[in-house]
């Protein structure tokens, strides 16, 4: 009897603890979902065409962004009422992006799509746009809840990190030593992906995170860091690397050290170089980071200009693609620095 009480009691406590933990962990997530589901009244932004669209790019220096921008241009070509698309490039400098947004306002654009260098840093500039009656749409990275941002069309970095982590741990059989290869320190991508990884790790006590490194989206740097880690750690069972661009550098280093057999690579994204690798090695797969987020963003913008009420956050979901299926998406006659996308041929970057 006493045993039973202890058992039931401890089970209850355990369940309580577990559910409490999940609730706490999911709190921020639930909160965000709720905020994203809020409807935005856009009647104040309603106006007739023709429209000038402004794109304030936080950076242009990578192929994902180039594809996303092509999606925006493609969507614009489908609307006769759009007369031009103005693009500025802040080259990773937040003060330049603030200036760019101000310049776009001076230029009289009717809608601003942007991807931030840093969300908080451009809030003031976005506020100025709002005061001038120009809607702003955060495009890409993550959801932003700020009064100065009209809506977000986003890819959930946290969710993506979680999907990648779960798949990796499953593929590893739930135990082993891993390291994480993350983008530039301090970016939303790096912060959210690491947080998601650590969250999922709580469910997998037998997974040990050896170290988290920042490869700056740079294939050469990812390779160099991995060459060092291979020396430091005699046992590495898995690599958490959501960015395919860096995953190739990581995998190459393992391969050259003759240790590719011992390691499980996490899914990357639909970066063509990575898809080629997946096809050749039939492992890893991909969790997509869809470039069509650009197209969805402009579509949403057009609805706002028509005065339709929209959700505060529109998620463009990441999807898991198994290694076998991912191989099909690989375009072998295309460069590595290329993205699998649904863009019509003539709108792909030339």
């Amino acid at each position, binding site marked *: 009897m006493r045993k039973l009480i202890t058992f039931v009691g401890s089970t209850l406590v355990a369940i309580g603890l577990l559910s409490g933990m999940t609730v706490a962990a999911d709190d921020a997530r639930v909160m965000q979902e709720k905020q994203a589901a809020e409807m935005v009244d856009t009647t104040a932004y309603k106006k007739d065409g023709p429209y000038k669209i402004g794109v304030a*790019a936080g950076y*242009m220096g990578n192929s994902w962004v180039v594809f996303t921008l092509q999606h925006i241009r493609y969507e614009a070509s489908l609307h006769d009422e759009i007369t*031009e698309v*103005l*693009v*500025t*490039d802040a*080259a*990773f*400098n*937040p*003060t*330049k992006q*603030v*200036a*760019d947004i*101000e*310049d*776009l306002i*001076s*230029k*009289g654009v009717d809608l601003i799509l942007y991807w931030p*260098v*840093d*969300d*908080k*840093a*451009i*809030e*003031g500039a976005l506020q100025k746009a709002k005061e001038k009656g120009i809607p702003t749409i955060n495009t890409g990275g993550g959801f932003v809840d700020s009064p100065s941002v009209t809506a977000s069309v986003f890819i959930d970095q946290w969710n993506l990190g979680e999907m990648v982590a779960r798949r990796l741990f499953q593929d590893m059989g739930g135990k082993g030593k891993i390291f994480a290869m993350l983008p*530039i*320190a*301090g970016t*939303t991508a*790096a*912060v959210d992906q690491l947080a998601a990884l650590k969250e999922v790790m709580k469910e997998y006590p037998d997974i040990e995170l050896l170290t988290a490194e920042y490869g700056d989206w740079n294939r050469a740097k990812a390779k160099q860091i991995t060459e060092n880690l291979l020396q430091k750690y005699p046992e590495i069972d898995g690599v958490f690397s959501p960015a395919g661009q860096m995953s190739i550098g990581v995998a190459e280093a393992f391969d050259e050290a003759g240790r590719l057999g011992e390691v499980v690579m996490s899914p990357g994204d639909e970066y063509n170089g990575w898809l080629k690798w997946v096809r050749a090695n039939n492992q890893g797969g991909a969790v997509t980071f869809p470039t069509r987020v650009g197209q969805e963003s402009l579509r949403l913008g057009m609805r706002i200009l028509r005065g339709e009420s929209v959700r505060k956050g529109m998620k463009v979901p990441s999807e898991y693609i198994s290694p076998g299926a991912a191989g099909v998406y690989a375009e072998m006659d295309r460069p590595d620095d290329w993205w699998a996308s649904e863009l019509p041929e003539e709108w792909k970057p030339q």
Partner: protein
Amino acid sequence: MRSPFTSLLSSKYGIIVLLGLTVLFAFIFVPEFGTVNNLTNIAIQSAPLAILAIGQTVVIIAGLIDLSVGMLLGLIVVIIADLMQGESSMTVVAILAALGLGGGVGMINGLLNNLLRIHPLILTFGMLSILQGLIFVYTDRSVGQVSSEFSWMANGTVIGVPFAIILLMFVALLTSFLLYKTRLGAHIFAVGGGEEQARRAGIMTGRVKIWAFIISGVSAGVAGMLVAGRLGTGYPNAGVGYELDAIVAVVLGGTSLAGGRGSILGTIAAVFVLGVASNILNLMEISSFVQIFVKGLIVVIAILLNQPKRIIAS
């Protein structure tokens, strides 16, 4: 052989003439340029770099160079935003912290420069890396929030004139006074012109160099305050690349990297040439890739037009 036009451009006032021409071009060909709103934007956008570049002008006149200012500015932005957390009561503390931190790191640069006797470019390059590390020890994401006073300092106006420009003018006048009217200023020119002669003339060259670095550090503090006000938050990479923009502006403004001569006015004009150029390229809807190319060309052409006529025999 040279036309009066080219010789004017390549004169001491070349950069100011160039600024005039750029602005004239903009007024004629870019309709949105001349609006009060746009002009205010350019002024506000250019002020932090101008202040940073004034400090850099002083170290370069002293025959030194300071690459650490970009990351120093970044560190200051992060720390003061975190200190304030949006509280107006912390404004004064944040100002003191910015100036103190800037001056303090400048002094360390100066002391190390004298102690270790390695090339200042290498020293401050190392310091840049150390400061960047410190930023990321402190935080890996945007932290804190500036007070409304800070926002106003960076974005507000006094009877139509942006406060940032008033601050810039104050810094420029103060630095000019320091350089041209005080003994320290004369010594800075002397040390930059020839350290050995300066030493023989009885100048405490080590102390002069420490002061030059302190001035540069303090300027990073003031510029950091404006950048923090502009961003509203402590963004860890806020200072990346500022050091190079500052050095480019200093040299375009007619200050010689060899030290010994230079011009605060020229530096400020150069910052505004770059700021106006960037603004009109945006307004003229030039593709961002072409913009990069054009900006590079502007630097190359400006430096070609603005070269000294003859090397002064040493």
